[in-house]
């Protein structure tokens, strides 16, 4: 009897193994689909070329950034859904050390730009006709540039709000209470909203 039960248990374990394998296959297919559609939360490094080590003001960015120890500049566009999501998370809650550059898309004023609503105007720059982005060689939004010791250091795509905060944390510019405020706004299963 015990032997029969053990055999049955072994067969069940084998079936479980096969089912888990099928589920792993599904998750891998999902990962592949996400990669093809670009909906994967992984930043891609952007080559800044000769801009590395240069002062931000050389490229039309605020001069105050030339004397900052470390900061992050995030480039957003009004036409980009992820940019709007990031701008929505930053609205009224811009962490210290962050400057937002908005691609005006040809507009000569902020009127009608959804992305700028709620952003700190002192730390928001409107990039008319993409002049700043063109000089930096940026062709994708959202993108983030890290400034270290007042010089442009590195750049990467910013596929989500979470990745933006990861960049900010990496330069230790974010305050703990700002992070908690961000976590409260993020809806996760099992966590009360």
């Amino acid at each position: 009897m015990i032997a029969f039960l053990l055999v049955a248990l072994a067969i069940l374990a084998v079936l479980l193994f096969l089912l888990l394998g099928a589920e792993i296959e599904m998750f891998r297919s999902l990962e592949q689909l996400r990669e093809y559609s670009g909906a994967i939360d992984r930043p891609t490094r952007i080559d800044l070329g000769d801009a590395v080590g240069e002062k931000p003001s050389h490229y039309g960015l605020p001069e105050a950034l030339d004397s900052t120890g470390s900061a992050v500049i995030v480039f957003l566009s009004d036409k980009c859904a992820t940019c709007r999501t990031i701008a929505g998370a930053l609205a009224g809650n811009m962490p210290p050390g962050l400057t937002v550059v908005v691609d005006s898309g040809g507009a000569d004023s902020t009127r009608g730009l959804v992305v700028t609503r709620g952003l700190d105007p002192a730390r928001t720059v409107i990039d008319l006709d993409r002049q700043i982005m063109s000089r930096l060689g940026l062709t994708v939004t959202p993108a983030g540039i890290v400034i270290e010791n007042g010089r442009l250091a590195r750049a990467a795509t910013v596929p989500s709000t979470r990745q933006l905060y990861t960049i900010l944390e990496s330069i230790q510019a974010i305050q703990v209470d700002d992070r908690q405020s961000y976590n409260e706004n993020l809806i996760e299963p099992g966590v009360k909203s």
Partner: protein
Amino acid sequence: MAPVGASILLIIAGVLIWAGLEKFRTQREFTSTLSALGVPAPLLRALGIGLPSAEILTGVSVVVGPSAAWPRIAVLSLALCFGAAGVLGLRAEEPIKCSCFGNEAHRSLGWFQIGTLPLWFLAMVPVVVSRPHWQFLDSMRNLVGVTLTISLIRALSLTRLRRVATSDRHAFKPSIEPMPIFARVLEGGK
């Protein structure tokens, strides 16, 4: 020495059962590997079922009859087959995808199979020297232990993939507001 030999046998059993089950689960990939190795078309189906069956049977036999000689001979025979596949893979004009564990590993047949061939023989040395032996009920328990262990290892991989998928899903919160018509329906339902 006896525990070492016993542990090696159980690990070999786990590896063979895993490989056999995965080949069954990813039959198409395994058949294409066999075809790339030059197996004639009439033999493809037979070998596609026969080889994974032999692996599973060998794995189970190693646990059920550890002191018997033929499971060990079967292990070494399979190892020689893997080594031969590695040699054929090196000689092939184009890399042949290894389907040893289904489509888990993204490597080609070649030096890995040839390099692990001596390890299979070396692993058999403590087994032959120590001659592990256990009762039938113990062998059943060991078989359950092996199958549950490989399922647990699988479950750990699944947990990691699920975590990544959940993180990606939450990172891309939709920024589209609900259409006005739905908002009116919700308000009317209060």
